[in-house]
């Protein structure tokens, strides 16, 4: 199989996955309770609820609802939020930039710190600095992110007055959310960079380069790092998905006006349309990221087999 047809197959599979996710999300939300209670409040009568059910179209059989939903999606109409009574794309649209911004910052921070730690640890393999750094990564991984987040608010805002406690706007507002969200990824990246570096450092061409008398620093930066970072790059795709999960928690603590909190709220108030589109959107982002990473990988590294 050549690279081109590999990519086409990959693309087809991605689309199929998306469709399956759409179906699952649709079915799952329809299995849940009745949203009219939340929409109408305490004093609504059953007649009013029936009226609302038919207005929302949730009194029809499930297959009919799904076909209707598909037709709407094709037209670009993803429905109206039950709760905000607005187009879900608009609701999500205004929430998305802060989340993407936070995720990008967390990835940048996580990778910068993680790669640094990983290299330093690998270069000092089995010395005390390696052990200390690795111990630190264990701690960064083990502390639940909301504990870290609240602890940072107490230390940096309440006691030291260095940073604003919450909200969104300036770079100062972004510091703590980025650290809280990115630290466990930094730990992950550090571990992988380290073991990948150790692998490469042990390979023949590196030994040859060192033997040829190249400075150790040059060897590490020029020869090892490039090869060692390949497995780290694949991580971006995997991490992108799990960052969404982390941002749900971090956005709540720091009052960051992103999509994560919207999703939690949509779950709690059974706002099906928002939930569906959120799931679909996140899945799309993850699938595209992974597709791009895979494609880049396939094109760059001829050793990758195209078969699954």
């Amino acid at each position, binding site marked *: 199989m050549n690279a081109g047809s590999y990519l086409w197959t990959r693309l087809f599979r991605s689309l199929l996955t998306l469709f399956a996710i759409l179906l699952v999300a649709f079915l799952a939300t329809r299995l849940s309770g009745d949203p009219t209670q939340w929409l109408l409040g305490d004093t609504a009568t059953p007649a009013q609820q029936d009226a609302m059910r038919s207005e929302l179209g949730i009194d029809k059989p499930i297959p009919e609802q799904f076909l209707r939903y598909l037709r709407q999606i094709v037209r670009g109409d993803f429905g109206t939020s039950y709760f905000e009574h607005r187009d879900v794309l608009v609701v999500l649209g205004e929430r998305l930039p802060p989340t993407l911004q936070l995720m990008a910052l967390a990835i940048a921070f996580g990778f910068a710190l993680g790669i640094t730690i990983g290299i330093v640890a690998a270069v000092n393999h089995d010395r005390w600095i390696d052990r200390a750094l690795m111990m630190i990564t264990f701690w960064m991984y083990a502390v639940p992110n*909301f504990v870290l987040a609240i602890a940072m608010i107490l230390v940096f805002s309440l006691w030291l007055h260095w940073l604003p406690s919450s909200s969104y706007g300036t770079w100062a507002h972004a510091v703590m959310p980025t650290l809280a969200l990115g630290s466990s990824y930094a730990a992950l990246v550090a571990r*992988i960079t380290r073991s990948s570096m150790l692998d490469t450092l042990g390979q023949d061409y590196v030994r040859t380069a060192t033997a040829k008398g190249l400075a150790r620093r040059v060897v590490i930066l020029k020869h090892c790092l490039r090869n060692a970072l390949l497995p780290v790059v694949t991580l971006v795709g995997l991490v992108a998905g799990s960052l969404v999960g982390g941002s749900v928690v971090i956005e709540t603590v720091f009052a960051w006006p992103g999509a994560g909190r919207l999703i939690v709220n949509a779950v709690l108030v059974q706002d099906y349309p928002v939930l569906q589109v959120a799931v679909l959107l996140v899945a799309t982002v993850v699938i595209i990221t*992974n597709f791009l990473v895979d494609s880049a990988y396939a094109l760059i590294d001829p050793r990758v087999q195209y078969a699954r």
Partner: protein
Amino acid sequence: MPGSAVRDRRGSATVGAAPAERLERRPRRRLKIPPVIWLSIGLLAVALIVALLAPLLEPYRPTAQSLRARLVPPVGFGGTLAHVLGTDHLGRDILARLIESLRMTLFIAALGTLIGALVGIALGLLAGTAGGFVDSFIMFLVDIQLAIPFTLAALTVIGIFGTSIAILIPVIGLAGWSQYARLTRGQVLSVRQMLYVEAVQALGGSQRRLALRHILPNVTSPIIVLVTYTFSQIMLLESSLSFLGLGVQPPQMSLGMMVGDGRNYLIGSWWIAVAPAAVLVAITVALALFGDWLRDRLDPRLER
């Protein structure tokens, strides 16, 4: 543990060894266990014993309230020996709750890990041995699972079906199935390419026999390592869900829930959240250290 996601997307895992190397028996080295690992193992053993003996060790019934003795600080911070670790906002003994929570957290993580591992290994074996459409379909399920961030899926399922333990454990457990499935499948595919497997098949060995006799033993070590990783992953996941109010519900309790509930008292009555957080972090770190050490022992490529 971080290493859990260290797998490239084609299913082979850097956790665990390449089967080719694994099949050659290496001369067994004497097991030398560093002190920090001893410490980790000791901590985990104590946690396990405490959890198993919980009802005997709890100084009070963990749900017993005393509203007039609420927010009592621990010994050394103004409290008395009556409540060694103090009391919470309903006047319940923190030590008793900590022990009971430890029991619940370990129970959830153990059962969740078991579910994820069994489902994942079974599907991985099936995919690897059956091949063809079955393989494609199972890998398709893996793709779907990978595309929906787990917290999002858990939120949706819990939002729909409620927050009982009977829902929570399978939901959390299934978080890890795809890791086991891909690991197992990758091992199966590698082993199948081995010459001796062809020989076994040529001699008329059945597929099931092949799976049980030759593949499972090879996949055991990396799975044990993966278990230590998913175990701590599940503990952290449960605490995130508890923070959002979607984890374990009262009157039951877990470490994550104690931290989540106690966070509003951090200024003033810090002990409510700090005690369970310390236990949670200590166990996670111990597990990570142990798992990492185990991987180094079991993975010949990293032995240098």
